[in-house]
């Protein structure tokens, strides 16, 4: 029933030719076919935000996106972090915003897209921007600090 179909995906600047069932989500393909395990499977319902990746620069839930709907789109995962996302990674480390780390890839990519649109956010804007990303260590304060710090240092 789950016949695989050929699929060409642009991920982190490289083209990958693979096969995926029509019902496979982008998250499944990233993790299982491409071994890019930075995007995490938390709720698989679009609620927790741990699977967030960028599609054409905009944040999407990889768990709510069918892989075959991504042909022709440029996907960026945390493994391909560059520019703002990389500055955010460094700020997360420096600020101690990484606890168990499960939410960090989604937090960082969501924040990267937010800073693209709002380069100098207030703390409240950061909280609102990250409101769809859950941290079960509840380390939100340092996460907000890290995003503000990355905004201050600016994008490379």
């Amino acid at each position, binding site marked *: 029933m789950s016949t695989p179909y050929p699929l060409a995906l642009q991920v982190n600047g490289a083209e990958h030719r693979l096969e995926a069932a*029509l019902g496979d989500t982008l998250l499944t393909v990233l993790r299982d076919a491409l071994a890019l395990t930075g995007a995490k499977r938390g709720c698989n319902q679009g609620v927790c935000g741990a699977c967030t990746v960028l599609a054409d620069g905009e944040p999407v839930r990889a768990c709510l996106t069918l892989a075959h709907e991504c042909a022709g789109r440029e996907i960026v995962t945390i493994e391909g972090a560059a520019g703002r996302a990389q500055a955010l990674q460094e700020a997360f480390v420096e600020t101690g915003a990484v606890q168990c780390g499960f939410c960090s890839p989604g937090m960082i990519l969501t924040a990267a897209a937010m800073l693209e649109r709002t380069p100098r956010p207030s703390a409240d804007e950061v909280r609102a921007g990250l409101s769809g990303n859950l941290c079960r260590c509840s380390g939100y304060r340092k996460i907000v600090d890290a995003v503000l710090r990355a905004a201050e240092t600016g994008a490379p």
Partner: protein
Amino acid sequence: MSALARLHRPATVEEAVRLLAGGDGERTRLLAGGATLVAMLNAGLVDPAELVSLAAVDELRGIGTLPDGGLRIGAMTRHRETAADVRLAGTLAVLREAAARIANPVVRNMGTIGGSISFADPAADYPPALVAADAAVEIAGPQGRRRVPAREFFVDWYATALGPNEMVTAILLAPRAPGLGSYDKLYRVAGDYAIVSVALSVAWRDGACARAGLAVGGCGPRPLHLDEADELLRAGRLGAQAARRAGELLAAAADPLDDVRASAAYRRRVIPRMVERALAAARDELSRTA
């Protein structure tokens, strides 16, 4: 494992309708932004054999101005775009405010207005907003296009006026009038569905309400709307007495359930307070600016 065997990607509405009609009833579904349907696929709540993706149908994208000055919001317009469109002002601001309160920024970047209203969760944000704004829903089917007022589109729990092989193509809005639109919801955590929501659209002329649309979400099978409550507000200044009476009428007509978010009794108590609060805020705002 999903039994999904076909993923169609039509370029036109007519082709999408043909694919729906050629499919196997409930086993053939439209895929819009995926925010609900793919979550249901993941949870094993639906098991379609065919999906008709609307991602490549240009006609369904974006918000356009109609010849009469009204607006047409394509079914595939994302919540993020609706929440940011400054043409949704005055009486139409209710829609913009509702869009901005859906879920969170990432889901607003995926979810679409057509997908949301076709699913017709009565605790969702768009249904009461569309009813308050007296929007119309444009529908395409094998017989062509038709329009249904939003007030008749939502018919029951997760049920709409869509017939077999029909799809939502757009939301149609009459030109905005001076006045105000507002949307407020009571929720457990930001981004959740509403416990109770109140959508309000008020046209204001010569220091008084020329037309009002008031709808309550989360309190029954469909958005709660009473012509009688709207009528109470018309021609007045949204005074405290009319606001109280409108809230009482809506609470009495509500048919809420006990669910994980709140009890039915709690919802009935909250409705008049939320209605009064929305009307008091509107009264203040309009007396200050209009």
